[in-house]
């Protein structure tokens, strides 16, 4: 029997907006969940998805993708890549799996909201496939690390991290709860798929895949490249929704959602991906600096995506462009200094050769970030390890939940952005974080940062031991230097040589 071509039946088959008679339209599509922006069903019928795929096609393609990724894993299982890889690279994997795997699974629920509650039939179809994508990503990124759990207890955090009060996970949950778990279908399409996935996941899944291949970890490179092929499809769910909103006079609301989500995504990537690319990945395997990746994927490509859509660049774009040279250095220094609070072992990444690379990629690094590292390195060389650890908490932002930081050393420029709201003093890491709060204060006001929880007596005893217990970090899980400070040997040798004259 002849089969019709897809495009001969696709539009008709997915035109499933019915005229409800037993219930009202608002009962069928509750505005809080549907996010209809006051637009009737027929306005959303103009939603035209750029990526038209049918279910049988989807299943066939996904089966092939799975077969590819799983067979590479099976073939390389005996290669002992994990055992033989640089400890810095292992930390990349641990950070990635813990931060990402369960978030992907949670994203299936966000996709399901678009699938059920969007008034746009085309979005419902794309989100059906997107939901299945996210389940696949959750499963794969739990299954792949599982083989290493018996070798390294920190690998257990691939599953465990999302349920803990570890500070980076509080930050990740705060962001994802905001953009995908507690928003209506249309807002999810704008904030999760357009802003976060189109804008940023290329960084983690293509940039990092390039580094993984360079590091010889083809299992990981294949896994995350396979995932990215799904992301690049379902990331397109938001674009046509933006078009509908702009055509119907809702550009300001659309723009606001983009601006909020892009900023939050940036902050999260500055702590997760920045240190990985510029410090953990062994020098010889680095393809580009984090800043260069950001400039290629976000500044060049995402800027174009925004303007093509008829949107403006976020109002804070100049702040953002400045921050991509700085913020992640602070996130690295902070996460490294507070390393017992991580579920991975951060690589310092500050040997003289690595510092030369940093200085070349980020002129002025030695006079700023390097000044703090100089003191740290002296302490390691002197065996004064107590001074290489913290004795208090960094103050974290009440929006992004990450440390409030800025440029140290000779270019010292660190600032708090406070705001008093309903008698409570909030602290923010930037003008933009504070602006996000001000857009909808009641949405965020009740949340307690890790510092707020500490001050409220929720963390006992009120010291590092109590904080680690609160974060569910057991002995054998808490982070320490990835290379056991072996990198400091070169500094010891330099000092000995200097002393010898």
């Amino acid at each position, binding site marked *: 029997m002849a089969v019709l071509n897809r495009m001969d039946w696709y539009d008709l088959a997915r035109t499933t907006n019915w005229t409800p008679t037993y219930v009202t339209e608002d009962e069928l599509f509750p505005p809080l969940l549907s996010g209809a922006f006051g637009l009737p069903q027929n306005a959303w019928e103009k939603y035209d998805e750029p990526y038209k795929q049918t279910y049988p096609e989807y299943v066939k393609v996904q089966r092939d993708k799975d077969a590819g990724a799983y067979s590479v894993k099976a073939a390389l299982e005996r290669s002992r890549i994990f055992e033989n890889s640089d400890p810095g690279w292992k930390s990349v994997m641990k950070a990635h799996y813990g931060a990402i795997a369960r978030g992907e699974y949670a994203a299936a629920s966000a996709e399901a909201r678009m699938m059920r509650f969007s008034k746009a039939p085309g979005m419902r179809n794309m989100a059906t496939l997107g939901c299945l994508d996210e389940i696949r990503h959750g499963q794969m990124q739990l299954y792949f690390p599982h083989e290493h759990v018996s070798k390294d207890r920190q690998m257990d955090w691939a599953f465990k991290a999302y349920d803990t009060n570890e500070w980076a996970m509080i930050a990740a949950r705060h962001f994802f709860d905001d953009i995908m778990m507690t928003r209506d279908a249309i807002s999810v399409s704008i904030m999760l798929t357009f802003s976060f996935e189109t804008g940023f996941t290329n960084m983690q899944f293509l940039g990092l895949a390039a580094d993984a291949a360079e590091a010889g970890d083809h299992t990981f490179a294949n896994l995350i490249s396979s995932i990215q092929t799904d992301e690049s499809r379902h990331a397109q769910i938001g674009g046509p929704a933006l078009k509908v909103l702009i055509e119907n006079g809702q550009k300001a609301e659309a723009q606001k959602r983009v601006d909020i989500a892009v900023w939050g995504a940036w902050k999260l990537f500055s702590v997760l991906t920045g240190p990985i690319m510029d410090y953990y990945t062994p020098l010889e395997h680095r393809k580009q600096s984090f800043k260069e990746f950001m400039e290629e994927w976000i500044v060049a490509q995402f800027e174009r995506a925004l303007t093509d859509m008829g949107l403006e660049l976020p109002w804070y774009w100049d702040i953002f462009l400045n921050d991509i040279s700085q913020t992640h250095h*602070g996130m690295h*220094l*902070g996460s490294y*200094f507070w390393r017992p609070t991580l579920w991975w072992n951060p690589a310092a990444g500050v040997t003289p050769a690595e510092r030369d690379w940093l200085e070349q990629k980020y002129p002025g690094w030695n006079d700023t*970030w390097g*000044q*703090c590292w*100089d*003191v*740290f390195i002296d*302490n390691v060389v002197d065996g004064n390890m107590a*001074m*290489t650890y*913290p*004795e*208090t*908490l*960094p*103050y974290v932002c009440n929006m992004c939940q990450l*440390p*409030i*930081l*800025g*440029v*140290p*050393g000779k270019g*010292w420029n*660190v*600032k*708090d952005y*406070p705001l008093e709201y309903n008698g409570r*003093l909030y*602290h923010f890491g930037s003008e933009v974080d504070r602006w996000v709060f001000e857009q909808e204060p009641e949405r965020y006001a009740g949340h307690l940062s890790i*510092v707020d929880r*500490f*001050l409220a007596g929720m963390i006992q005893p009120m010291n590092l031991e109590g904080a680690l217990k609160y974060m569910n970090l057991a002995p054998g899980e808490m982070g320490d230097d990835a290379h056991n400070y072996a990198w400091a040997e070169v500094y010891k040798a330099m000092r000995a040589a200097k002393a010898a004259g």
Partner: protein
Amino acid sequence: MALFPLTSNFEGDFVLQLVAVDSENTMDEVAAAAAVHSVGRRVRARPGHIMRVRRQGGAEFLPRTLKVSESGLKPTETIEIIWEAPKA
């Protein structure tokens, strides 16, 4: 006498930190408490300098003997700790 949390922004350091002081501490004592978490960890000591306290963005240092309870500082308010060079 009461525990009083402040947020320390220490000159030369990269991050704001929580510092617990006492409401009866002087500004010199506040600066010393803040220094514990920055100097010798990520900021080099500056022999001969005095550490002064000011409100974030403030033009004037708070008097060295001023007590926290007299300063009008709010709990968790951010203070800047600045190195003051010895007078020649």
